[in-house]
């Protein structure tokens, strides 16, 4: 590059561009925060949902599953599992509860976490709430 | 006239006529807007006017006409591509 290209201009571009776009990002974040209550239905976050999220985290469910498409790709998407299981909390709870301790020969299996019934309910409540988030029509179909 | 004075002379050109032309074109667009007209010919007219206006700014205001062709071609080529794609998109929606 030529002498017409000065380092100080390149530097100004970097600092100016970084600040400019970060401010824009912060502005958009404010707008998003304003819009989110309409889409996440936070009024439905009961203590059970919150407890369910904590259980979700403390058992590292994201290490195999995706939730709204984010996570590991080893096991099915769970953002819409409540709908996939026919909007049936009991079915979800029964599935988690029935996982064999020693796995299934030659196949992937979810571990047995030995949850109490209350904990199972919390998790199901969390997944139910998650399925009601307005995720712009994602996933494309029920299979997630 | 030395090379430098020619350049100085060119820089001195205040572009007042270009400015007036740009103002006139803008008012024309406003008139079109006020009538609320649409359709193929109006869209074509507006796209051409955008092309003319931006090219005037690039050539005379920015002064790319005084610069080696390649720099000007980047801008002109860009304008041409964007405008024709816009035209294409509108043609798709009109038909």
């Amino acid at each position, binding site marked *: *590059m030529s002498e017409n*290209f*000065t*380092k100080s201009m*390149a*530097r100004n*571009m*970097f600092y100016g*561009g*970084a600040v400019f*776009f*970060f401010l*824009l*990002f912060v502005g*958009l974040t404010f707008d*998003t925060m304003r*819009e*989110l209550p309409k*889409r*996440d239905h936070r009024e439905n*976050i009961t203590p059970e949902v*919150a407890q369910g*999220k*904590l259980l979700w*985290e*403390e*058992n*590292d*469910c*994201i*290490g195999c599953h995706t*939730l*709204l*498409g984010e996570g*590991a*790709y*080893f096991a*099915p*998407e769970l953002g819409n599992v409540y709908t996939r299981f026919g909007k049936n909390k009991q079915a979800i709870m029964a599935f988690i509860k029935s996982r064999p*301790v*020693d*796995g*299934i020969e*030659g*196949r*992937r299996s979810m*571990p*047995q976490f030995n949850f109490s019934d209350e904990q199972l309910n919390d998790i199901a409540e969390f997944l139910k709430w*998650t399925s009601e*988030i307005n*995720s*712009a*029509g*994602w*996933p*494309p*179909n*029920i*299979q*997630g | 006239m030395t090379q430098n004075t020619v350049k100085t002379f060119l820089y001195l050109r205040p572009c007042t006529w270009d400015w007036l032309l740009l103002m006139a074109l803008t008012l024309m667009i406003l008139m079109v807007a006020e009538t609320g007209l649409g359709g193929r010919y109006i869209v074509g007219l507006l796209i051409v006017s955008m092309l003319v206006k931006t090219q005037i700014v690039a050539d005379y205001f920015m002064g790319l006409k005084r610069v080696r062709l390649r720099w000007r071609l980047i801008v002109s080529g860009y304008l041409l591509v964007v405008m024709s794609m816009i035209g294409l998109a509108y043609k798709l929606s009109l038909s």
Partner: protein
Amino acid sequence: MQYQSQAVAKPYFIAALAMFAGQIIFGLIMGLQYVIGDFLFPEIPFNVARMVHTNLLIVWLLFGFMGAAYYLVPEESETELFSPKLAMALFWIFLVAGVLTIVGYLAVPYATLAKITGNDILPTMGREFLEQPTITKIGIVIVALGFLFNILMTVLKGRKTVITSVLLIGLGGLAVFFLFSFYNPDNLVLDKYFWWWTVHLWVEGVWELILGSILAFVLIKVTGVDREVIEKWLYVIIAMTLITGIIGTGHHYFWIGTPEYWQVLGSIFSALEPIPFFMMAVFAFNMVNRRRREHPNKVATLWALGTAVMSFLGAGVWGFMHTLAPVNYYTHGTQLTAAHAHMAFYGAYVMIVLCMISYAMPMMRGRAANSAKAQVVEMWGFWLMTISIVLITLFLTGAGILQVYMQRMGDAPMSFMVVQDKITLFYWLREAAGVVFLIGLITYFASFFVGGDEAASA
């Protein structure tokens, strides 16, 4: 090596490489679990293996960045490191904390680890890549602050260069954006929104600043091109990185409950994200072609060119492939994401750290470059690992395309597990390519122990 204190980089690099080996072994375990579902079950379930795989990657890259900074900053600032003792103390703290965390993952169930470390007090665990116990996270912050202090003091007392200021901004940003990992609200959407402030603004923001400055440093050293020229390029590249990358965060805000305008903004700005990577590739080749000296360390130049090309392919091309919202609607959360992640991380960050190690290690061992024989062995390692990562990416891309087609499209989509069974072949091929990677890694390690008489003296 011009300054004694640069030597503190050595243990950092050794630790980084050891963890790299661990990362690859757990990668192979996971790859096998993809095809033999009950492999090591229930002793090491997939989620634990994955956690070890990704967390080791993050930690060893951090070790690599720190080592690179400790090596590069004294030389750039033309002064000894502010406190080599602090650097060594932080090394041991970080290493012990890192190893304990990994042992914790493997020794007890994750829920038990959460209980032991008091996750209930300040729950931050169990989110992808941020699985570390809260106490480890606090440790990371302390280590990062101590490290930044040490580097900052060194820069302040010596010569200020563009490379060190960009590096400092990158490292400072790394520390600042990590703080968002402590924010974990009950609302999943908010949690995810700010989780990306750590994850995206790291890997597609401030880490690229670190990458750029390390690359610029190595290029100045091996090509002898005028510093002014390289620094100008560096500024322009990182300016484009942040201009496109900050709003580019929007490509993660398509389907997580955030407003739909992010589909427009995220698509547009992330479509521009390949530009800085392209510029980086052009820049690296340009500088090497204009070189004013023939540096004896050929393999460091190879790594530098490699990182420029592979980061463009992995982050630029493979990222662009599925970044537009209408495409991402079908590809979000499939093996395509995994394909992109593998090549981008290897191309951008693994290779830049290996590049720095390749340049600095011979210096720290008292020679300008390794013997020709050792360099040839290292080049074998380079090609084996690089080709294998290309293959892994291609196989995962194949798996991903089939997955999208069978699971997401058509009138009768199949369920996740059915589709997984149908694409097993691709997972076997990926695992085979992974074995090649391990062989490449072993070859790379072997190059450190190859002697030779032709070794040039420092």
